């Protein structure tokens, strides 16, 4: 496909995407679901580049999500800062945390890396539950509505928050695709696939790993930022395994290194939970089974199954991929 046409197609797609909630009836529940899907998708995109490109399983991304949410809550409640400054603060804070964590885990790979990141997540949950500064087990309350007074914009409900969530989603997708085309993204892939070859090609794997971490963490943290506004309340539950499983499933379920994969993954899971729920336990079994079955039996994810069909509609491939799961 000609790259000009591609750009136009993507732009058209982005515009259509904005009207998805309206097309689905525009009820409060639809907007609530769409906003959450956008937020959780952004959260997953952060993890996506670590898992899919760098090839490591970080179990500490819930911490980045929490850092984003807690920083936003603290800055907006105690310091009265607006969304722009709280976003800046959240990103700054998460860069510090990610740098520290990246530095600590620089030497570690594979399961030792995962074990340590998991340990970090556990310690973070303990801290969040017990430290009064972070609200302890009661959490932080009274986060104001998302308001940009200089634009005259105020989001009192999910419908009004949707443009922000959608914009954040587009930015995250753009960042991930730009990352994949960048030198860093290619170096990360090289480190992932063949570390020895990477070293002999003059790539420093440890530096690449740290850099990827520093790109990834702010993406996930920005999801936490918006989540704080959406929920108006943050507590230690943002560090629960639920979010971890959600992220991991979203990243792998469609197939790795698919640009829209995490978005579609999150959409599938959320739609099932919200509109086709079978109760907490059965939902758990469903989510777990989806994770197991895709990884164990569908090396290319769900998309690998439908990909051959795609050839039948090659021209419409991308728009179809975008809209189908949101309707199902």
């Amino acid at each position, binding site marked *: 496909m000609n790259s000009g046409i591609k750009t136009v197609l993507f732009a058209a797609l982005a515009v259509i995407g904005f009207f998805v909630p309206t097309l689905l009836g525009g009820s409060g529940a639809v907007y609530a679901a769409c906003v959450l899907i956008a937020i959780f998708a952004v959260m997953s995109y952060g993890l996506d580049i670590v*898992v899919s490109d760098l*090839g*490591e*399983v970080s179990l500490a991304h819930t911490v980045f999500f929490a850092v984003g949410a807690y920083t936003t809550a603290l800055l907006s409640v105690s310091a009265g800062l607006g969304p722009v400054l709280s976003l800046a603060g959240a990103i700054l804070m998460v860069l510090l945390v990610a740098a520290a964590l990246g530095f*600590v885990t620089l*030497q*570690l790979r*594979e*399961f*030792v890396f*995962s*074990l*340590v990141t*998991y*340990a*970090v997540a*556990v*310690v973070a949950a*303990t*801290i969040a539950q*017990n430290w009064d500064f972070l609200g302890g087990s009661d959490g932080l309350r009274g986060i104001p509505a998302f308001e940009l007074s200089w634009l005259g914009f105020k989001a009192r409900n999910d419908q009004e928050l949707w443009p922000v969530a959608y914009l954040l989603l587009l930015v995250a997708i753009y960042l991930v695709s730009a990352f994949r085309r960048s030198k860093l993204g290619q170096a990360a892939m090289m480190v992932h696939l063949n570390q020895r070859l990477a070293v002999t090609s003059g790539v420093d794997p440890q530096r690449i790993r740290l850099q990827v971490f520093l790109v990834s963490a702010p993406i996930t943290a920005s999801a936490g930022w918006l989540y704080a506004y959406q929920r108006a309340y943050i507590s230690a539950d943002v560090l629960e*395994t639920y979010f*971890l*499983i959600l992220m*991991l*499933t979203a990243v*792998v379920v469609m197939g790795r290194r698919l640009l829209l994969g995490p978005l579609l993954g999150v959409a599938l899971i959320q739609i099932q939970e919200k509109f086709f729920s079978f109760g*907490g*336990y*059965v*939902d*758990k*079994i469903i*989510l*777990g*089974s*989806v*994770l*197991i079955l895709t*990884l*164990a039996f569908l090396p290319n994810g769900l998309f690998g199954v439908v990909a051959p069909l795609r050839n039948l509609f090659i021209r419409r491939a991308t728009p179809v991929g975008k809209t189908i799961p949101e309707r199902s």
Partner: protein
Amino acid sequence: MNFTQQLVNGIVLGHAYALIAIGWTVLLGVARLVNFGHGQMYMLGAFVTWYGVSRLGLPYFVAIPVAMLVGVAVGYVMQRVMLQLTLKQDLVSIMIVTLGFGYVLHGAAALFFGSTGQILETPFSTKDIYWGDLWFTYQDIAIVIVAILFFAVLKYVIDRTRIGRLARMVAEDPQLAQLAGVNVRRVYLGVFAFEGAAVALAAALVAPRTPILTSMGFDEVIITFVVVVLGGIGSVTGSYVAGLALGLFTAFFGAFVSPAYATAAAFAVLIAVLVVRPGGLAVSPGGR
């Protein structure tokens, strides 16, 4: 007498930790597999034992092997599903799959066993021993004895028997082991079945100490983590020592500081050790 009682607490707790961790230690040592479903397998072992004793009326000593058999079955199924990933050594996918299994086991157990707290009573757990000021139960003694025996036998099997040698060969280099005529698949399946049986045994022995809930696996998995990693990944002797040390640490940290932060403190130690000696942990594979 506070000190001796805490010592007793720590020793019992330590042996319990070591016993819970042993299946995973071998799994990690031999197959390089991280099992995030370990805690839920522990929960399942406890509930199957409980179901056998209190619902089916089985004697405790019959319920234990039943639970172990269920553990073997679960371990076998898990590994059967993950076999291709294991052979490819796709550790990333395996970790995520085991997380998924933990989720499924939790959901399924809650549907089947319900979500109320239960007490697993055994002939030992109800008999208290008061010795001067000291207090413990026969269950505690059973935990310590079984843990020591289990570790001794396991150490012997791994170091001195043919099965142990096969496992160590696969642990060091599964490809080379194939060239020595070893059926690597079977070793992987066997190791996971062992993990299932071991964790079920641990659950049957340790779970009577506290009420059990189908949502409880998480805390067990994180403690096991510390034991497995601090012990030197895959080291049997190491995880016994680490389990005991962690038990004593928990008891005395609880006694002198606060039980509220004992787990977090253990994790802080773990992170520190990993950072200071990242390479030192990758001791000889093969479950020694």
